[in-house]
């Protein structure tokens, strides 16, 4: 099955990319943009039992795919 993982910077962490995108958007004349956050997105093709996979992905997210010091993650399985 396919795991779709999104990893976003914690609110406390300064997110220069988000700022840059926000400025660029305003520059291009997009009104009403109040906040932008830039993170990472991963798709992992993996097979196995749903529970097992769920456990594995969660562990992988915690250990490797995200850095708990600066990031949060969430994922869904399809």
């Amino acid at each position: 099955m396919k795991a779709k993982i999104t990893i976003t910077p914690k609110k406390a962490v300064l997110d220069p990319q988000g700022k840059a995108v926000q400025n660029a958007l305003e520059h291009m004349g997009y009104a009403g943009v109040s906040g932008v956050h830039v993170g990472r997105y991963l798709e992992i093709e993996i097979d196995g039992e749903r529970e097992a996979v769920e456990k594995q992905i969660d562990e992988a997210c915690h250990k490797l795919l995200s850095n708990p010091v600066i990031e949060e993650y969430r994922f869904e399985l399809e």
Partner: protein
Amino acid sequence: MKVAVIQFPGSNSDQDAVNGVRVIGHQASLLWHKEESVGDADAVIIPGGFSYGDYLRCGAIARFSPVMQAVKQFAADGGLILGICNGFQVLCEAGLLPGALVRNRSLQFRSEHVFLKTIAKDTPFTGGVADDRLLRVPIAHGEGCYFADEETLAGIKANNQILWQYVSQQGEANDDANPNGSLENIAGICNQARNVAGLMPHPERACEEVVGSADGRAILESMAAWLDKGKSAEAA
């Protein structure tokens, strides 16, 4: 001193670290990332570069290589470990140092010489740096912005773990002197036990006047001196 310089796939300042140690008259050799022991090394340097391509996050993948398990043990046993640039990122990812290194505020890679002020002098990495002598050394990184949450940062300061700050030529830790947006202009820190340190700048690329500066020696020489003291203490 005998230094083991870790060689990950993608390390590119590994040989520079070996040379830096040799220039100050000590021994150094490369240690392949698939090794499972640091051998008889007195100290370990985790060098600059792009370990495993720095894919995902800088240092994220290197942390899982076999040699890093040995390095963790070495650290637990009180061994001296210095992480330079990518090495600093690896140590943070591995949890051997607090905090994390994120994208430069400019969102651009920065390659230039900076001035470093040494803050904590009571460490194996800074003991030999003369009082208020600024070190002029190069940086070369895209993700060197030091971050830690408030609590962690408070702890780091309480324990006097900040080793180096980016400062102006006049010694002020101001915004202009900060090349990447690091909190408190932090260029390098150590762990609580003070045997593991990391910094983004490259002292090993500043060990000979012919390449523009020899200020980096002070850091490597501090390590050597500290180890010698330890040895003579044992002997006595």
